[in-house]
């Protein structure tokens, strides 16, 4: 397998605070990789560092054979990385359709492919088609998350970065969204890097997983193995299975 995203020794600072203390991860083509960890571990920081904001102070980030460590954010995104950021961050006053069009800025951009991608997104999330003339901000939380993922998919990404898609959503919606991600990975071979607090669901979905504690990777391995470990269960699953 070819590595799509390689992160080596990345350190990121917020002022004097070292948020990432030398992180190494690999995401191979066609994989779903998850990063779990508690609040403030640095998961979102890592994802944002990959996107170039904040910038890594040391280390290297390579995407698809190109060094993107010092690239401006919008150029990184144009290399076909799509991000569904934390807190969804859809455009609240724009309609669902306009939101999706914004995502298409990263794609080929011609009318035919936009139409095709719209059909794909509406196929994955039929509720978005029903709501396409509605303002993004008036959608429910689950619908907004679907819109955020749909917007990311409109750019035909090679790598989909998902930051806490389960945040604040009902278990049923989380399951629905995760099954869409699984389908995308299986049918289209989409590579996904997923940052999650919901460790159980994330490890169930992913092929491989990383555990981050205080800005460092403490464990990694196949997701099933991580899920079976007692220390993981104790720390992130609290012994019980989360619905």
């Amino acid at each position, binding site marked *: 397998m070819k590595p799509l995203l390689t992160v080596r020794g990345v350190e990121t600072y917020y002022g004097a605070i070292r948020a990432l203390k030398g992180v190494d991860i690999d995401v191979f083509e066609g994989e779903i990789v998850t990063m779990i960890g508690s609040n403030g571990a640095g998961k979102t920081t890592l994802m944002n560092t990959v*996107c170039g*904001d904040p910038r890594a102070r040391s280390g290297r980030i390579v995407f698809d054979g190109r060094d993107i460590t010092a690239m*401006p*954010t*919008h150029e990184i*995104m*144009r290399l076909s990385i*799509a*991000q*569904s*950021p934390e807190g969804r*961050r*859809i*455009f*609240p*006053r*724009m*309609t669902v*359709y*306009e939101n999706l*069009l*914004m*995502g298409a*800025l*990263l794609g080929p951009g011609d009318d035919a492919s936009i139409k095709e991608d*719209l059909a794909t997104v509406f196929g994955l999330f039929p509720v978005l088609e029903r709501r*396409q*003339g*509605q*303002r*993004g*901000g*008036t959608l*429910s*939380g689950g619908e*907004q998350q679907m819109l955020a993922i749909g*917007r*990311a998919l409109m*750019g035909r990404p090679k790598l989909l970065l998902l930051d806490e898609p389960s945040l*604040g959503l009902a278990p049923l919606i989380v399951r629905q969204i995760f099954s869409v991600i699984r389908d995308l990975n299986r049918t289209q071979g989409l590579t996904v890097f997923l940052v999650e607090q919901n460790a159980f669901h994330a490890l169930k979905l992913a092929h491989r997983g990383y555990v981050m504690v205080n800005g460092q990777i403490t464990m990694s391995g196949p997701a099933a193995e991580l899920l079976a470990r007692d220390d993981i269960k104790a720390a992130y699953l609290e012994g019980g299975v989360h619905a």
Partner: protein
Amino acid sequence: MTDTLQPETSPVTRTLPRGHITADVLKDAGITFVIALLLFGSIVGLRTDTVNGVLVLIPQFGKALALATAVAVGRLLLDVFIWRRMTDGRTFASLIPSALPVLKVAGAVGVTFGLALYSIPGFRASLVAGAGSGHPALGAITDLITFACESTFLVIAAMSIVRAARLVIGQTPDEAVGQGILRRFTADFGREFPIALLLIALALPMLTAGPSQRYAIDTATQILIYVMLGWGLNIVVGLAGLLDLGYVAFYAVGAYTYALISTQFGWSFWVCLPLAGFFAALWGITLGFPVLRLRGDYLAIVTMAFGEIIRIVLLNWQSLTGGPNGINRIPKLTFFGLPFERTGDGTFASVFGLKFDPLHRMVFLYYVILALALLTNFITLRLRRLPIGRAWEALREDEIACRSVGINTVTTKLTAFAIGAMFGGFAGSFFAARQGFISPESFTFMESALVLAIVVLGGLGSQLGVVIAAVILIGSAERFRDLEDFRMLIFGLSMVLVMIWRPRGLMSGRTPSAFLNARKNISGSFVKEGRG
């Protein structure tokens, strides 16, 4: 329809005796009229005045009668619509179910006819004779009523023309035609109203006549300058969401560009206009660079400072700008090379075989600023549908999300500043050409605040809102000029009231810039975002 479906309420209303229910209300109004007449008769009806040192009594019973009638009608309306003083809690309308449509049509015709009559200066003069000669406030109020009546009549007339034209070419309003004459008339308001406004704007010089014509055209030109500034600032504040409190700086740059180039090199307005826009845009980018990282309040403070810097530089750079004395004898606008002069060959009047009239120049200026403003609007509306315009709006919504969809926020912000500034520069050079004299005094912070007030009052991002707000703010400031400083008080008060009633501005709805299937307007009530 009525023979199959009987309205539930009709049997009840039909069986009730009519008349005695309204009698109470009418009696009440009658008593009010008598009391008001007694009071007004002595206070207003008998006015004492000194004429040539002699005290004389001026009877004004007509005025007293009018005031008493107004009070009685007001009381009647309150009774019927607000207090609903019907014997068993029913409304006035339910008493006359069969006559209602007739009444509505009659009302609409009556109102239109009344407005038309009132718009005839002679008729109005006889109606409000003497009112304007009293306290300036009274004069201003009658002026305002006049203005409101005239503009309502104009809008109704223009909208009727638009509707008639649409019916002739076979277009019918596509929104559901409601019941009632008013609702049917306004069924396609969002589309027809702007066209009606445009018709009025185009026909304005023909609509006015007599001594007030110059004043009307001058005021309209003034309003259009602010409409243009408002539209320019709307790109920066309304679309891109960058709060700019120093917009007047670009207006000043445009004005001084034209003033300096035309006085120093003698270039014509039409050559200087693009240059003024170019220089203003350059300054827009210059301002844009240092404020790229700033948002909200911080951005507002820095842009405000920028506006002041430009003004103070203009004030102190004596050798170039003339300092506080400003620049004098700026060449006036010519009709594509033909000057509007009283004497001489090759003037506008002589070439077209007309008698010289200063009005020619004013009407030409009016159409120039109208064309410039419409150009601004046209370009803005086009840009909104292009990726750059959508990027501006996305920037206003969420900067981080913008980056995650690959928008270059730096160029997006800079183009917003530059294009907004360019239109400010156009307006500025027009201003200089119209005034013939400019000084830093015209470019104070108050101007920035006024333009921003127009944009905010109209509704951020709404092109139509800017027009309405500019007409209200600039128009009323002109109308209330007699009240001197009090008008600023009224100005502030009305702003506060509007912001309480319509916190998102007069036109708070946002028309999506792209549609998949049917075009659909989103009402202002959905503007507030709900998260989660």
